[in-house]
């Protein structure tokens, strides 16, 4: 066990000394807070516009029309989730790459194996080091996000909100680490570092961007800015009845989305944060009931990724090359 900790500690040193990793991480953190700022600014503006029209209506002696914009602080995290989906995955790829190629190209892996350490200890040490890093990093960033939300809204986050944020940390860590396992696998499997990166990035492109993008652009509601059904003034039950006629189309569309790990992660977190409006004010247990499938799938992806690595590395001779 001591060896695992030693290797895990060494992983952390390698990570923080990688300039490109630190740069990308810095970019991600900056973008996360910019997106938070933009969301907050847009909300403030929405409230301002509402109050302005309210005052105008009052001065004309008319009754207010429409609902006042309601603040669910976690709704403002839409951009944050987007960035984890895209940049978080890239960070995962970098981590897998750094973890393997640092050892491969300095031949340190051969030195390590001449010590009384098992292959399993090396693998688990590396996985543990990266898991702890991602988890600690996301926890820290989330604490700052929570602080920023409280500062903006002026209200303390509820206990349920804190639980939701904790779930976000866990799910996001799992999501990032899936990409770590992908790049970890190819970094071992490929002899040329850039080839491992190109393959990992190609997979990322398909999983994190293309599949969700296909699903989104095929969504009938996305064909009009602001939503097709809203522009048709259809109620939700009417919308569901209409879409009942397009089961096959929807089956294909959601099928493509289901192929994407990113979409499973997104659906879970959008549910918890109420970014999908229907989940605002819904008890956590009910959201869980609705989203457990997506969460389970996300976890399954990680388990498959880890198992693939462990099985491959225990059998392969490429470990040294």
């Amino acid at each position, binding site marked *: 066990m001591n060896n695992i900790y030693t290797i895990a500690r060494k992983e952390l040193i390698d990570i923080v000394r990688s*300039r*490109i990793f630190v*740069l*990308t991480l810095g*970019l991600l953190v900056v*973008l996360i807070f*910019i*997106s938070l700022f*933009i969301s907050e*600014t*847009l909300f*403030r*503006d*929405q409230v301002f*516009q509402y109050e302005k029209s309210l005052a105008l209506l009052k001065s004309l002696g008319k009754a207010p029309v429409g609902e006042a914009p309601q603040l669910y602080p976690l709704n403002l995290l*839409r*951009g944050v989730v*987007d*960035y984890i*989906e*895209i*940049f978080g995955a890239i960070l995962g790829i970098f981590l897998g*790459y750094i973890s393997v*190629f640092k050892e491969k*190209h300095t031949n340190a892996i051969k030195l390590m194996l001449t010590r009384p350490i098992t292959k399993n200890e090396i693998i688990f040490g590396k996985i543990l080091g990266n898991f702890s890093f991602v988890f600690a990093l996301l926890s820290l960033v989330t604490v700052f996000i929570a602080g920023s939300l409280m500062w903006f809204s002026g209200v303390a986050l509820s206990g349920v909100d804190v639980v939701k944020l904790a779930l976000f940390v866990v799910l996001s860590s799992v999501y990032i680490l899936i990409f770590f396992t992908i790049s970890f696998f190819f970094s071992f499997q490929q002899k*040329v*570092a*850039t*080839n491992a*990166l*190109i*393959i990992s*990035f*190609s997979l990322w*492109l*398909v999983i994190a*961007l*293309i599949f969700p*993008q*296909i699903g*989104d*652009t*095929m969504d*009938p509601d*996305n*064909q*009009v*800015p*602001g939503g*097709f*059904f809203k*522009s*048709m*003034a*259809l109620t939700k039950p*009417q919308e569901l009845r*209409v*879409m009942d*006629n*397009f089961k096959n189309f929807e089956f294909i569309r959601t099928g493509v989305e289901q192929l994407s790990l990113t979409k499973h992660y997104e659906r879970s977190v959008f549910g918890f944060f109420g970014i999908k409006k229907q989940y605002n004010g819904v008890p956590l247990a009910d959201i869980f009931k609705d989203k457990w499938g997506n969460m389970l799938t996300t976890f399954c992806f990680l388990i498959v990724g880890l198992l693939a690595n462990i099985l491959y590395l225990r059998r392969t001779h490429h470990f040294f090359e």
Partner: protein
Amino acid sequence: MKALNTSVVVMRNEITLLLRERTLYVLLGIFFVMAVLSTIIGWSTQHTIMNVYDAAVAELALVGQDAPPFPVNSTPLGIMTNMIIYNVLIGSLLAIVLGYFVGIHDRMYGVVKILFSRPIRSRDIFLGKIFATVLILSLVTLMAFLVSVISLGIFGVLGTSAVVSVLLFYGVSLLYMSGFAFLAMSFAFVFQNSTSAMLYALFIWMIVTFALPELSSALFPTSSLNPILPPSNFLNSPVLSFAHTVTYPFSVSEHYKALCATILGVGAGATNTGSIWFNTSVVMLWSALAFILSLRFFTNMDPSSDTLYE
């Protein structure tokens, strides 16, 4: 040896080397699959939304409500809009990988010293590399163009003006992608570490594709990948409006998307505050600056040192 001859010899060599890079085919495959799928996706979505509209009209009629007119801005080349996004995502990544390989080959194989000890001008070597990159990218876009034209023939309406628009669209795309190829090539000329060269090019790609659109137009990353942009009132906010004024001129991907949308006649979207000429200038300037950067970095390359780490 005549200068053009040298460039052609270098170009042929680069192309042979490129064709033997197996990982390049992964991205090429994804690009062509998506080029084929883009029109099919566009067509099936457009077709479905019309049927959804009819069903919605019937649903409203049941409760005695009048239906609003068909709200979707349906245009003949509308089914191609996804390809704009695929060029932003896949095309530019493909260009980065292409440029990276062209830039790194000599250093990766340790032949810089031999190459520069031959009686040829370094300018001609550089031009050979540029020719190879542009030629391969042109072939890729030409094939994508043919795929699109055939798909339009099957799923859409094909006329002379449509073909011209699609040709123009791919011309602009070639320009946009070349910028990324030149950028990656520049980094490959000078970085001591081959992976860093690739990663820093990807870093710039991330900034251009996701970070700048957010800063300038308050677009969340996934929203900026949808050809139909969400409604936004961000310009009402003085802070965001200021951010837009400052950063929009640099947001190349937005200018590319807006320009292509205009060419395909689908509307450039609310976040585009520039004219078509402004969009065009930014895309051209992007490619030109990346070209100048690659020239400069190639000139600064030290031929006496071909140390390269992975």
